[in-house]
């Protein structure tokens, strides 16, 4: 149990870095050609990267980008997925059938392949394109969860009683289905947050992210290119990604365990 507390701690660190980080330290685009790929020093606590960019500042700005992308992507996915899935589970019929087919289809593309395919459609991907590419497959997870929950609730007495009393579908959804979904969705979203951070880093690592923003993945890619002479760049960027993803995964597990204890 003790180990699980590391998760929330890492998440808190990430949140602090994303919220306050960009005000600390140098500007991540500040160029100093005399100080390229310097090892950590008093002036640059984590050293510098290409063009003498301060690594600490780059990491903090990267945290801001990762947080924004993940918040927006998870937010949209939760909203769209939960509503569509709950509606389909409650109503059944042809809407449920069409949605089921659509979900199967989206999930026929493994991992980041669909993300890349969507980004390939635009000449120069921007932040918005990146978010869209991540959200298009993202909602399915929540839709499946919400659909299953709505299906099981449909059979429960209190929902059937409400139905008999003339409650509309919208009211059933708002009063009975959605409140029951908050817990499971929150747990799922916490784990998924780390997944989106990883997907964003991976896409940037592959060179598919927006060139206008500082990203951990792009930094790791840059560091991998100079691994022989300046391994600190890749070490710093990779650690940031790995610790953040680990933090959200552990926090998700921790929430899941707590929910199980309460349920059991």
């Amino acid at each position, binding site marked *: 149990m003790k180990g699980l507390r590391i998760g929330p701690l890492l998440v808190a660190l990430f949140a602090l870095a994303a919220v306050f980080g960009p005000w600390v330290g140098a500007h991540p685009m500040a160029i100093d050609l005399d100080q390229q790929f310097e090892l950590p020093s008093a002036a640059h606590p984590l050293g510098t990267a290409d063009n003498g960019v301060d690594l600490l500042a780059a990491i903090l700005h990267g945290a801001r980008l990762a947080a924004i992308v993940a918040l927006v992507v998870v937010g949209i996915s939760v909203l769209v997925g939960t509503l569509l899935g709950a509606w389909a589970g409650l109503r059944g019929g042809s809407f449920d059938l069409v949605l089921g*087919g659509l979900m*199967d*289809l989206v999930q*026929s*593309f*493994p*991992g*980041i*392949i*669909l993300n*890349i*395919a*969507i*980004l*390939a*459609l*635009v*000449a120069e991907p921007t932040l918005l394109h990146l978010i869209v590419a991540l959200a298009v497959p993202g909602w399915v997870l929540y839709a499946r969860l919400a659909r299953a929950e709505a299906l099981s609730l449909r059979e429960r007495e209190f929902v059937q009683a409400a139905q008999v009393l003339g409650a509309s579908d919208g009211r059933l959804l708002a009063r009975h289905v959605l409140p029951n979904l908050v817990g499971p969705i929150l747990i799922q979203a916490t784990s998924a947050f780390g997944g989106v951070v*990883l997907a964003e*880093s*991976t896409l940037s*690592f*592959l*060179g*598919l992210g927006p060139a206008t923003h500082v990203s951990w*993945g792009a930094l*790791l890619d840059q*560091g*991998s290119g100079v*691994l*022989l002479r300046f*391994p600190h760049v*890749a*070490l710093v960027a*990779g*650690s940031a*990604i*790995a610790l953040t*993803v*680990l933090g959200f*995964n552990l926090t998700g597990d921790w929430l899941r365990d707590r929910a199980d204890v309460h349920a059991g």
Partner: protein
Amino acid sequence: MNGELGRYLFVRIIRGLATILGVVTLVFLLVRMIPGDPVDTILGDRATPEDRADLRERLHLDDSLPVQYGRFLGDVLDGSLGRSFRSDRSVGERIAEVLPDTAALALAALALALALAIPLGVLAAARKGTAVDRLASTFAVLGLAIPNIWLGPLLVLAFAVQLRWLPLPGDDAVGAAGLVLPAVTLGTAFAAVLARQTRAATAEALGQPHVTAARAKGLREWAVLRRHALRLAWLPVLTVAAAQLGALLSGTVVVEKIFERPGLGALFLDAFFDRDLPVVQGCVLVIALTYVAVNLALDLAYAFVDPRLRLGGERAR
């Protein structure tokens, strides 16, 4: 029982075929969903009118959508998958050229994961609470937590730069030595999940009454493991394969980039940056169809290995 199995297989195969048709259609529509004029996206705004007209002609953009779709289906069925913009060859030829490299990488990763995770999981279950067990659970947590974009550079740093045991990325793209680090990078997450699942399945099997009876009869521990526990090892392998297949397939794109290896993922990325949309389309299609086909095969294999599932419906994911 037999009719039940037949019906399950029939339904599952029909669903698989429907998904394949859906994937083909979606990949076709994807490229038609390019915002604005696709010619602008592909050539940029500095292209000459002749180039633009030529590309419109080659893309058959002036045909109606059903005609384009029919042509696309034909290209899929004859395996050519259309023509590349950049080289004058068919997409199918270019993919066939690099597919063996990616298959070798994926199979090596799979073999490595099986060779490591199954003994580790079985040993951990047989020696519960010992150092082996702790090693296995540490490996299971860390192996899954380390992203492959990070594990790859770390392995290169340790084994190619510091220890110099293995070649640097790009130095030995075809030999067996050059395959080690890419396969470890790709297979570690798979091995981590598999070790955990194997441990759980073996521990459960060892707790069964018939195993206790076998031990009481005086059967040696190794024989108990071999006769009763390892026979069940297929189930976790299939479960983990189904759950990790997507990560494995998309991981090849990442690993081929890190280690500068040729393959489907490398072709996919090159085509992305060249804006060679037919090749992008072909790569997406081949990867997705592989995914659907292997998933279908895993489901069918599962039905044969574990007959309970045929009655309960589908495998839980």
